[in-house]
């Protein structure tokens, strides 16, 4: 069964977005900065990871908003890959945290400063 070659464009979007693109991008920027604040100020390693996930999601929102505005499916495919890679990153990051906890008995990132283990 031959599948016709796909183009990621579905043409200019058939209907205008009910909400202006800028609104979505502002929300994305807001979530990004909130995530950034979390990364910089939290000392619990797990809360740090959560803030990173928040930042990744704000990027996803930006991808999808642009994809919708331009009538292009590349945005959705990019988000697909971002979600998959974020899952891999979360798994490995948490595995590292668990290992560190076994030796140091803490996940307070202020105390993990020996640069080994």
């Amino acid at each position, binding site marked *: 069964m031959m*599948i016709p*070659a*796909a183009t*990621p464009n*579905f043409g*200019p*979007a*058939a*209907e*205008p977005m*009910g*909400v202006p*693109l*800028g*609104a*979505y*991008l*502002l*929300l994305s*920027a*807001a*979530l*990004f*900065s*909130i*995530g*950034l*604040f*979390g990364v*910089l*100020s939290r000392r619990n390693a*797990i*809360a740090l990871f*959560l803030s990173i996930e*928040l930042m990744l*999601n704000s990027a*996803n*929102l930006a991808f999808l*908003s*642009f994809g919708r505005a331009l*009538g292009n499916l590349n945005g*959705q*495919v990019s988000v*697909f*890959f971002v*979600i*998959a890679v*974020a*899952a*891999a990153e979360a*798994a*490995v990051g*948490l*595995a*590292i*945290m*668990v*290992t560190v*906890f076994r030796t140091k008995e803490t*996940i307070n990132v202020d105390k993990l400063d020996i640069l080994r283990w």
Partner: protein
Amino acid sequence: MELALFIVCAAVAILFALVVVTHPDPVRSVLALVVTFFALAILYVQLAAPLIAALQIIVYAGAILVLFLFVIMLLNAGPEKDTGDRSRLRTIISLLTAAGLGGMIAARAWLNQSTGIEGADNPSSLAAEGSVHAVARVLFDRYLFAFELVSIVLLAALVGALVLTKKEPA
């Protein structure tokens, strides 16, 4: 209608994102992040990406955050107790940095959103745009190589997590 839904979801997302980054108890942070993800998933549906919304809930809210919860319970990470020790300077600097960077992004986003799209109101074609079939076509045609690579990345993460957490035989 779309604007009202956007405002509600955006408000919920921002409110619970603030809870995520400020609440001392990591379990509450995770649950607040789940709510944020649900709000974002609703926005994704509004952006003609129902497949991505479903994947967001299945993968992000349903698997990754459950993994976070497991690790929190495994490490018995209770609320951050020594919050009195939190450096006020650190909080202020993070706030300024985040606000500065966020402000720059927001300003650029708001000033440059010149992609005005004209078109007729046509809900059915909107559904066809982000449909599963359309995304699948693009994913398995143009991005097939990247798709296979991502599966290798996931395999590497799987093996890595297993190897890292394997206990040394006593």
